[in-house]
């Protein structure tokens, strides 16, 4: 599941919605990204954002055994301490849940069309994010 929204999210409620009434989930991993010491404005490319996030989520489900997943990304103005992004993965086993969550974040960081601005300054992309995403490249052959 994919959501792009201006409002905050409730991590506990999101986990409960994914897992309640199910007994086939043994592991839930969440990643929450938060604003540190700055004020941010987040712009995105609405028509592409949802499609790209869905592609990334579909690829995670192809690569790992997941019972459920969720990606929420906020846009608009955000203050220090605010939540920016939530990724939740649910699986029978913890290895799949951890790896899929890391993959989702690495791909989201390098492929989902969001741009952060701190005041008048656009945040620059980090090489470390490209490096992190590269480790998931499928070996050819």
């Amino acid at each position, binding site marked *: 599941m994919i959501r792009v929204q201006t409002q905050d999210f409730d991590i506990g409620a999101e986990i409960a919605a994914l897992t309640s009434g199910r007994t086939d989930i043994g592991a839930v991993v969440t990643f929450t990204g938060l604003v540190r010491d700055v004020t941010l404005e987040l712009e995105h490319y609405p028509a592409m954002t949802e499609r790209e996030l869905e592609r990334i989520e579909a690829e995670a489900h192809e690569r790992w055994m997941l019972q459920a997943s969720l990606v929420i990304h906020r846009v608009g103005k955000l203050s220090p301490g605010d939540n920016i992004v939530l990724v939740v993965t649910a699986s029978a086993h913890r290895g799949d849940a951890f790896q899929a969550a890391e993959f989702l974040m690495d791909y989201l960081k*390098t492929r989902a069309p969001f741009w952060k601005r701190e005041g008048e300054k656009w945040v620059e992309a980090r090489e470390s994010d490209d490096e992190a995403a590269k480790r998931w490249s499928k070996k050819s052959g």
Partner: protein
Amino acid sequence: MRILYFSWVRQKVGTAEEAVALPADIATVATLIDWLKSRGPGYEAAFENLKLIRAAIDQTHAELDASIAGADEIAFFPPVTGG
């Protein structure tokens, strides 16, 4: 064809979106960029360093040598910084 610009590419070009009628010989993202650069100093500044430019054809990431034949919407933007 609709062209979209985001983040500082949008600011340098000076518009978020425009419709363009392309000459017949504009076949790839790269030749489209060359053509756009000829349209004024804002475009020139936006596309000065192609290492910092990413493109999407119809909402899908595309390389600079990708064909734009049949595309409805091309977007240009810097490397993404979400998450």
